[in-house]
Each structure stands twice: as structure tokens, then as C-alpha cells.
């Protein structure tokens, strides 16, 4: 996201119905929101639909955003997370991957696997198969380059937990790549 843009000023103008401000907010957050959604859903069509819904929700509810310590960016990500959750809830075919990852994992440990050559495609494919909270951590930490503090604010988790989740997420991704 373009840090140079005065987000608070744009939010204020958008709240007053300024079309240009909406446009600038869209331009500022589109890529990050789209990437976040794409990693979660794994296909372009759904990612586009959900991204659009996120921006409509965000703009129609922009007057409800109050700068009480929660950065606007974190607020946007929370809307995005909720929309993706709604998407999976609506599909009803979403498997609770988080539970599976914690309970049923009979695949060989990464240490038992031989190291393979990694490709971008393999990483992308595996990324869509790991639990949702690991997907979120990976996209925010490695793709969006957020700090642990920022991730903690977005995901509403303590920083120490973010570090643990980050480690687990990479391990889960490795495991998934080797399994593919």
C-alpha cells in the first residue's frame, strides 16, 4: 500500500461522500486486498468477486470507522477476513482446515522428506491448501511485508503468538509442498 497517501484525510473525505477520495482509497488498497483474498480462495474469479464486495462494504460503512487506535488498514483487512469467511460459509464445502492441521496429520514429517527443488507454482498451489490462519500470516508477513505488531493488530492476536504462528505457517507450507 502506498504509505505516502494520507489515509486519514482520504477516509474523512470519503465519509463525506467524496468520489475522488473513494477512488484513491480503492487504488491504495486494491492490490493488497486482492492478494490477501487470492491466497485465501486460490482462484481469480472468486478473488475478484470477493475483492469487489470488500470495497463496497468498506465504502458503505466508512462512516462507522473511528480512528480509536485501530489503523484503517487493519480495519480493511478485518472486513476482508470476514468476507472470505462468509464466502466459505456460503459454499458450505469449506473444510475446517485449521482443525485438520491440528488433529489429523499422518503425513511424513518434513525432516523425513528429501529436499526438492521449489517452484513458484508449487508454493502457490500449496499455499491454498494450508489452514486459513497460516495463509493469513504468510500473506501479511512475507507478501505484504507487515511487522509482527501490524499483523497482531489485524489478526487480533498477541505478537508472541504471531511469531509462533509464523513459524508454524512456514512449516505447514513446507510440509504441503513436499506432500504435493
Amino acid at each position: 500500500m502506498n504509505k505516502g497517501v494520507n489515509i486519514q484525510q482520504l477516509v474523512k473525505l470519503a465519509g463525506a461522500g467524496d468520489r475522488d477520495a473513494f477512488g484513491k482509497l480503492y487504488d491504495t488498497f486494491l492490490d493488497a486486498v486482492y492478494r490477501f483474498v487470492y491466497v485465501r480462495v486460490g482462484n481469480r474469479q472468486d478473488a475478484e468477486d470477493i475483492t469487489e464486495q470488500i470495497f463496497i462494504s468498506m465504502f458503505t460503512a466508512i462512516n462507522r470507522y473511528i480512528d480509536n487506535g485501530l489503523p484503517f488498514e487493519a480495519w480493511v483487512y478485518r472486513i476482508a477476513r470476514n468476507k472470505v469467511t462468509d464466502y466459505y460459509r456460503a459454499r458450505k464445502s469449506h473444510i475446517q482446515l485449521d482443525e485438520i492441521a491440528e488433529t489429523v496429520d499422518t503425513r511424513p514429517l518434513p525432516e523425513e522428506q528429501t529436499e526438492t527443488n521449489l517452484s513458484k507454482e508449487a508454493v502457490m498451489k500449496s499455499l491454498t491448501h494450508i489452514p486459513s490462519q497460516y495463509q493469513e500470516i504468510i500473506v501479511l508477513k512475507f507478501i505484504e511485508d507487515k511487522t509482527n505488531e501490524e499483523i497482531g493488530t489485524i489478526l487480533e492476536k498477541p505478537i508472541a503468538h504471531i511469531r509462533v504462528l509464523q513459524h508454524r505457517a512456514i512449516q505447514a507450507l513446507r510440509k504441503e509442498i513436499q506432500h504435493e
Partner: protein
Amino acid sequence: MNNQTTQIEAILKNLKNDKEISPNAAFRTNSRIRILNTVINTKTTTSIPHSYSVPMVYAFRFALLLVFLFGSTVYAAQSSSPHDVLYPVKTLSEQVALTLSPTESTKTSVAMTIISRRADEHTSAEKAGDTEEIKQTTTNFESAVVEIRKTKHINREKVEIEIRKHESPSRKENDTKEDNNTTLESIREQEGQKPVITTNPKQSSPAPEATGKESSDHEDSKNAD
């Protein structure tokens, strides 16, 4: 293992610039137009439900109006005089009725009733010959007039006619009765108005006409100086 982790992290970091994970140009443009149109239209139409809420507000106000008008204490207070304990309840209920009246005609009717009541109180005080009460009722009448003139959404023409109807006889009577001149002067002095000058008949005679308008009353007094 560490080597693999490093590789994964490197690939992930490069994904930010990968086209596959970024929105394409067509979506970027078309979605922008769709979203902005939807949002602007939604923002415009969100004010429409207000028209549905207006009757609700009126209904609520009218219900409150009924509660205030028919509450037993309020009801008992309606016949109270300025020196009674319940008199403030009476004036409060009138103010509430005036504020909560849903339509212009109801508001005008309530305003006229208030004027009429204050005038009746003044007449009763004059009949009783109680100087203190005359003073009090005059103040009450003029305060009520000021308040009602400040009220929005009332038929001003009707209200002004009602005010003149009750104001003129009282003033005329006061101005013509020499015995009452001292009382009237003292009342006007206490209200911050200049007393009617009785030494100059030319100046004192226009006073009854001038009493029809509060502001012109002041003007005439100033001109008298």
C-alpha cells in the same frame, strides 16, 4: 531444511510482484467504476428511508404529547393560577405540547391556547386587584409571547392576531386608567422598558397602538427620548 525454508520465504517475497497474484488491468478499471457507482448510489439512496422515519417520529411525538396532556398531575395543573404550586407543571406541559405538536396547525392551536390562557390569568388578576399578581401575569404573558414568536413552524399570522386580541385591551385599559399608571410604569421599568411618558400627551397617546408590536413599542419609547 533451513535451505528449503529460505527458498520458500524468498519465493513468497517475490509473489508480491507476481502477475498471477495481482488484479489484472481489466478488473482494476471495471471494478473501480462498478464500486464507485454502487457506493455513490447507495450513499444517495440511504437518505430515502428518512421519509419512512418521519411518520414514526411524528407518531412518537404525538404519543408523548398525549402522555403529557393526559397525565393526571398535568391534568390537575391545567386549572392552576400563577401563585399555585402546580402552575410550573402547567407551563411546562404547555411548552412540551408546543414542542411536540406534529403539524403546523396543531402547533398554532397550542400557541393560541397558551396566549389565551396567559391573557385570562392577567384578566383574573386585574379583577382581583392583586398588584403582585398583575405584575406576575403581565410578565408571564409577555414571556409567553416572546417564546411563541421564537417557535418555528407555526402560522404567525393567526398567532399575531391572537396576541393583539389579548394584548390591546389590557394595554388600552392600563393606559387610560390614570390610577394604574404607576403600576404599569413600575412593571415596564422592571421589564427593562422605558415607562410611558405621561407628561407629554402626544407621546403617551400612540402607546396603545404601539403595544401591538413589541419591537415598535421599544422604538416609540426611544423616539420619545
